[in-house]
């Protein structure tokens, strides 16, 4: 605490995104309705600039800003690039269905604010900043979930909000308890004080913090909102809900557990491992007999968080955990967005049965769907395969071989429902409805599917970038 470092240039991507959100809000109030797409364009420009800035920052040494409250290191840099890229995809997905609607610009602004929240979650090194980022990531998401103002959307938003509010309170309580135990909220300080604090107190506080962060991640036991919120909201909003907050939350969780809790007596690796196993198992069982594609993807995302929690659980024991987590995050985001892009491009196809005979009508789109679903499953050479390989390796290396076995068994189980979707799509028959695929999301689906294969093949250099140490 000797020198104050308040250089806002370290937060350039966040500043870009926040600035474009505020500017977009103002613009939206003045622009005529048919020009509101400019708000999305502005957001896209901010995201692109932010990715460039994050790339430049990633090349430099790890630094901290604002008195150590915000870190710029491999975790932040990766999350920045992934979240900004994800925001870009969500913006692109939402332009077609929202074109010319009354509240078009508001949607784009909310998307950007939600993305900003995820960015802040990933970089925060102070529990109070984490709390602020949590709210910033949450509140716009509530609005996005119910954006359509229809029955399912209202239910989605209400359920999301009520559970979010409840767990948010628990989260803040947890932070208070940790504050009491560690006499501070900055991670640098907590790292010294928490190991000496009573384990029961730290454990209680951590339970509250976990409740909140797992809510954002959509993991067991805070996962109840996921299926309803995802099914009820519009496809682009659902794509956002299952991707962006999750990334921020998992990065925040990793940062919190690795830095301040490293020397603590609280058995958090075991707890996280059990939660990981429960998440993947419950998610898979929930997904088994879903017929609604969004609901199926919602349960699939719960199970995916389980795999993402594996490297978090192994973080203390294996040096491979960090690149594994970051790579899997990037691979998951890309693949999941690709699957949602397919859903977005076929707004009339709600159930698995509606996809029957898709191969005949839209071969390229079907191929993208197959790549994305098999990608989520972890079939080589897609990116998630390499992610899974890394995650399994980290788990075994970290002494959690049982978790790797559970994860492998779960992967097989997940095969069942992904194939339930692929099978009607590739088989013949089906009433050939006249509904055409929306062009922009369909192109985007092809691009993301191709990108997930490219990321899988070119995983070597990407993994290398993610290996660096955390900022102190």
């Amino acid at each position: 605490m000797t020198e104050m470092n308040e250089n806002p240039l370290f937060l350039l991507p966040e500043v870009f995104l926040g600035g474009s959100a505020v500017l977009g809000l103002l613009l939206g109030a003045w622009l005529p309705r048919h020009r509101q797409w400019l708000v999305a364009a502005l957001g896209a420009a901010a995201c692109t600039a932010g990715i460039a800035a994050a790339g430049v920052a990633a090349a430099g040494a790890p630094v901290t800003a604002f008195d150590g409250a915000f870190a710029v290191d491999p975790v932040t840099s990766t999350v920045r690039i992934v979240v900004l890229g994800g925001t870009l995809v969500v913006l692109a997905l939402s332009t077609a269905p929202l074109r010319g609607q009354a509240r078009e610009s508001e949607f784009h602004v909310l998307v950007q604010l939600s993305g900003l929240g995820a960015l802040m979650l990933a970089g925060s090194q102070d529990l109070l900043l984490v709390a602020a980022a949590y709210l910033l990531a949450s509140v716009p998401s509530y609005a996005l979930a119910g954006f359509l103002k229809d029955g399912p959307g209202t239910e989605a938003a209400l359920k999301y909000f009520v559970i979010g509010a409840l767990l948010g309170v628990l989260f803040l309580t947890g932070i208070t308890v940790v504050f009491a135990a560690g006499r501070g909220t900055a991670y640098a300080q907590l790292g010294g004080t928490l190991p000496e604090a009573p384990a029961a107190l730290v454990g209680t506080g951590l339970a509250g913090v976990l409740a909140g962060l797992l809510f954002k991640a959509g993991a067991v036991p805070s996962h109840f909102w996921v299926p309803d919120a995802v099914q009820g909201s519009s496809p682009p909003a659902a794509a956002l809900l299952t991707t962006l907050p999750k990334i921020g939350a998992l990065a925040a969780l990793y940062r919190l557990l690795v830095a301040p809790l490293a020397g603590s007596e609280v058995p958090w690796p075991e707890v996280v491992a059990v939660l990981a196993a429960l998440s993947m198992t419950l998610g898979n069982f929930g997904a088994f007999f879903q017929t609604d594609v969004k609901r199926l993807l919602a349960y699939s995302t719960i199970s995916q968080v389980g795999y993402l929690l594996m490297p978090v659980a192994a973080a203390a024991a294996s040096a491979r955990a960090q690149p594994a987590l970051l790579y899997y995050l990037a691979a998951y985001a890309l693949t999941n967005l690709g699957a949602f892009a397919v859903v977005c491009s076929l707004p009339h196809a709600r159930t698995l049965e509606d996809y029957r005979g898709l191969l005949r009508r839209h071969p390229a789109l079907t191929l993208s769907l197959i790549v994305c679903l098999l990608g989520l499953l972890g079939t080589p050479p897609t990116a998630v395969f390499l992610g899974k390989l890394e995650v399994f390796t980290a788990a075994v290396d970290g002494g959690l071989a049982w978790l790797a076995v559970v994860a492998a068994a779960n992967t097989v189980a997940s095969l069942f429902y992904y194939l339930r979707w692929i099978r009607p799509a590739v088989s013949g028959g089906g009433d050939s409805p006249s509904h055409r695929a929306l062009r922009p999301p369909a192109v985007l689906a092809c691009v993301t599917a191709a990108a997930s294969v490219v990321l899988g093949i070119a995983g070597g250099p990407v993994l290398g970038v993610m290996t660096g140490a955390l900022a102190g």
Partner: protein
Amino acid sequence: MLTAIILLPAAAAALLLCLPRRTPRAVHLGVWAAVSAIVLALTLVVWAGYRPGEGIQYETYARWIPSAGVGYHVGVDGLSLPLLAMTGVLFLACACYASRETRRVRDFAALFLLLETTCLGLFAALDLILFFVFFDLSIVAMYFIIAGWGHRGAARAALRFFLYTFVGSLALLLGFIGLYLAADPHTFDMVALTRENPLAGRSAYGALVLLALGVGLAVKTPTVPFHTWLPPAHTEAPAAGSAILAGVLLKMGTYGFLRIAMPMLPQAWREYALVFVLVGVVSVLYGALVALAQTEFKRMIAYTSVNHMGYIILAVGAAAAAGTDAADARRLAVTGATFQMVSHGLLTGALFLLAGVLYERGRTYEMAAYSGIAARAPLFAALTGVAVFGSLGLPGFSGFIAEFQILAGSLGPRPVATALAVAGILLTAALLVRALQRMFLGPLRLPDTAGASGAFADVRAHEGAAIVPLLALAVVLGLVPRFVLDVIEPASRGVLELLAR
């Protein structure tokens, strides 16, 4: 060179998918056959340039994911070269056989080409993750072939096939990760792992890794009790798909035993070899007995595959028996196992294509529905007869050489088990000859199901072009096997040296 062989079919598949929709059927099929022929020709060039006994050749290494210890590493030696050649032959045969295919030809050809890449890549891979990538992709491609072009119950059978083999592949992946973490520095490179023997002296760890690998490979092979996916998959798949499934995909499991499990886990393998011997014998006998009970021709052949794969498992298990005096015998067993892979690929491939011919004429595999076909279709009867006698191990065919070597080699180290396995030969001989007699001799009777033409046409040119070379090759290998054995023997000696560490 190897890379070109591996990637050529996949590139052709991508090209086919890019062609406009209205491209005539003949173009797709022509590309498929031409590419398969080129691949086979290139494989033969590799064979011609291969010097037996000098280890891995045609090696290519490229950095792929260095931080995860994964590299693109391919090469051939005496174990993989015969299998590569067999793969090329079988795919070309399937391309010929399918030249009258009419249903969604473009996708069919593209899938087969993709499948060819995965098979060739797997046998050439010298990196565990590369091996795994091809292993998994072969499952995906085969799933779509069965589900898309199979018979009535294809969707179920394809799902079952996918689930089972995918479970196996994940067990395999865990085993690979176990090997990777044991090695220092961590690597997935097969050559390095084989050299290093990372689990030496770590008996419990080695047993766990061997368990994971064993389950994974046993599912793919398949051995009893992991064989239950095989009969439905075979029965429901289109003829060319069955031929590839039995001829090539099953070999991925047995090849994995020889290439990965034995050389990398010698200590654990020696400790648990008896398990493999038992599994092998049970597979031999159980496969034969269940085949005996089948009423469908194709299902029966599927079960004889379980039986034939059982011999290979028996041989690799017996090869680990202690005692230096049995060295020659063990080498014979390993050589026989490799030879059996090639032989079984050719003969069973031919049998499944013949089953496809039968189905096309009569729309059923039910053996009781046919009788006296020999009078109507003498060539078909003759070819089936040749394939059946080859398959039951008659001297003069490749199957005899393989089974003789396996049994002669295993008898010394494991006399009781081998004696039991010999009974399996009798059973298969009985059931195959009985099937032949029921279907081809006696008064003429043909099924009168819907879609069946009244006349039973003899083998057509494209079918003959696919089946005759396979059988001819089986005879050539049975009469003059030296040119293949010369390639295999040094490699099997190498495997045994690694096993003795």
